[in-house]
């Protein structure tokens, strides 16, 4: 069966919704088993004290990137039917910077806060409350920043286009970046905080 299954009419919308729940269960299970329901573990990344968070992130990106690209080479998925995220570079960099500040202050990102909240972590419940307020703040005062939000629109803009290389080489580049980035960060962790912590 060639994916995306729902867009190729191979499964119904109801099954697609069920898939959303099941994939969510896998995701939430993996977050908890990786220790990401613990705000101390997440925030430790910003002190290089425990770099598991970036290592998991890099590994997930590389796994998904190789998987999707490989499946398209094998003809198992039709990339033309994917939803590709558009790049609004400057608002995304500004948003990322504020997001990072919020993570170091609050100890969570959205997905980890949901996962942590249901295991009883009260700091996660309060963080989720803050998140709801923050996103309402953005939407209700939208006219103040709608120009900035829609600025620097680059459409779908991928690394292969940026570097003018083929997709396979771009996947290889981010794979190397992920592997050496993970190893480098782990090395810094051991250097600053020792091997046993």
């Amino acid at each position, binding site marked *: 069966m060639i994916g*995306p299954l729902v*867009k190729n009419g191979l*499964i119904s919308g109801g099954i697609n919704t069920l*898939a959303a729940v099941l*994939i*969510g*269960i*896998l*995701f*939430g*299970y*993996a977050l908890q088993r990786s*220790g990401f329901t613990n*705000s*101390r*573990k997440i925030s430790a*990344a910003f*002190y290089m*004290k425990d770099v598991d968070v970036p290592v*998991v*992130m890099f590994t*997930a990106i590389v*796994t998904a990137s190789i998987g999707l690209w490989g499946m398209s080479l094998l003809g198992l998925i039709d990339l033309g039917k994917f939803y*590709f995220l558009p*790049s609004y570079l400057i608002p*995304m960099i*500004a948003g*990322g*910077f*504020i*997001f*990072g*500040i*919020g*993570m*170091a*202050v*609050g100890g969570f990102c959205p997905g980890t806060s*949901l*996962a942590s*909240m249901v*295991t*009883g972590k*009260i*700091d996660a419940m*309060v963080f989720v*409350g*803050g998140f*709801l*307020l*923050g996103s309402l*703040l*953005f939407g*209700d005062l939208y006219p103040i*920043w709608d120009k900035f939000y829609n600025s620097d629109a680059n459409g*779908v*803009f991928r690394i*292969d286009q940026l570097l003018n290389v083929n997709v396979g080489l771009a996947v290889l580049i*981010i794979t190397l970046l992920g592997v050496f980035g993970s190893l480098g960060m782990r090395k810094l962790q051991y250097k600053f905080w020792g091997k046993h*912590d």
Partner: protein
Amino acid sequence: MKKNLWDPIFGGIMIGIAIILTFYISGRGLGASGSMTSFAVWIQHLFAPSYTESSSYFSKYFANGVNPLNDYLVFMAIGIMIGSFLAGMISKDLKFEILKGPNISNKGRLWYALFGGILVGYAARLARGCTSGQALVGGAELSVGSWAFMFAIFAGGFAVAYFVRRQWI
């Protein structure tokens, strides 16, 4: 820190597989923040329906009379909570507690959590996604904006880490 966790490489591969599955089945990525904003909008709509529906940003959540909670990412968020709860049950980590460093009060930690949550809630909308839907999914799609977003997260976190160290270290 709790022992008996998954190896981070294994955890990353599992999350990577979850991303591949959403694309293979649904032709889109996974995400977490979108569902939380849908929920926030749904609550606001209970109290101020016409104000919310006429909002230039939130009106799209009600286009054609749909309920913002009837959304792919909301169902996924329900799954995330079920999955984490099950994992917490199996690993005996279901417990009401506040996690923090030794040098801050519970009340102090919760103020930080609230303020951090507000910043992340705002920033996730400005950046059109969060660590899941923007950084991981866009990163795998080779999106330049997503990679820039991810590096900016680390820049922001490292920039402020020193000032909030009392909370964690």
